[in-house]
């Protein structure tokens, strides 16, 4: 009893899920907006304390991986399975690299006694505490989404290899791709908000 696959419907469902993700981060952006309004100076100083280079590198990494994911769908639809496998693997590796960078970045900050409830932040100006509080929450939640995205891509990769994702049925890959792009899109906003303020 094979049913026709309603790809548009599956995609609609995925988009609806993505909306909820957007609003989830939206709550945090709301906090950011209000606190930025309250403590513009501390936020600017906090932004300068973050490593702009690592931030930019991570942006480029995510953009590239987004590109390869988009290209992998084209590859699958044009029946070049090998290319698709390569592109998805590349994307997953990009995700790993992103997380490694994040790890190094957080590590350095924590080493300098900047983490939630640390003495430096407790005794420093309240705006700075809020800036780094938000920094950890937002990038942390984003990092979690990167991990979920990588998992989805990995599952898609397995499906591509064993042929369950092919030129006729590729909703799994397409939806994982959509998720990955969303993670990228959120980073596109997180990057200027934290690394480039003023």
């Amino acid at each position, binding site marked *: 009893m094979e*049913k*026709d696959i*309603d*790809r*548009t419907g599956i*995609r*609609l469902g995925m*988009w*609806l899920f993505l*909306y909820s993700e*957007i*609003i989830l981060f*939206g*709550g945090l*952006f*709301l906090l950011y*907006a*209000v606190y930025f*309004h*309250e403590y513009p100076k501390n936020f600017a100083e906090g932004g300068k304390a973050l490593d*702009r280079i690592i931030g*930019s590198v991570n*942006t*480029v990494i995510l*953009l*590239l991986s*987004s*590109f390869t*994911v*988009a*290209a992998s*769908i*084209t590859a699958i*639809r*044009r029946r070049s399975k090998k290319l698709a496998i390569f592109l998805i693997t590349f994307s997953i590796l990009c995700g790993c690299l992103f997380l490694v960078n994040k790890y190094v970045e957080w590590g350095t900050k924590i080493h300098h006694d900047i983490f939630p409830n640390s003495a430096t932040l407790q005794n420093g100006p309240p705006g700075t505490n809020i800036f780094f509080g938000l920094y950890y929450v937002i990038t942390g939640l984003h990092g979690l989404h990167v991990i979920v995205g990588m998992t989805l891509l990995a599952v898609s990769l397995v499906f591509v290899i064993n042929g369950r994702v092919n030129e006729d049925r590729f909703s799994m890959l397409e939806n994982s*791709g*959509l998720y990955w*792009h*969303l993670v*990228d*899109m959120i980073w*596109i*906003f997180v*990057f*200027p*908000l934290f*690394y*480039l*303020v*003023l």
Partner: protein
Amino acid sequence: MKQEERPEPDDPHVMGYGKLFAIIAALLVLTCITVAVSYVNLGFYNVPIALLIATAKSSLVLLFFMHMKYEGTAIKVSFLSTIAFLCIMISFTFWDVAFR
């Protein structure tokens, strides 16, 4: 009985590699610009510029990588509604925060 055949633009559009290359190039250029601008101190204007560039970048991702350009009205309208709701969330909170 299953799935009514409602004519729907079920995107036959496969993004060409060339087009995807063009998009990623544009995205990288925009990233360079936004980083470069951040080194110039424009005072308050740094923020809107950075956000404007971010919006442009995410629009590119959205329209082409995520195929939004080729989706039907349902997805387009609902996406815009989501963004509208997000804007309301943030802006209406400022009725309070900005006037305290």
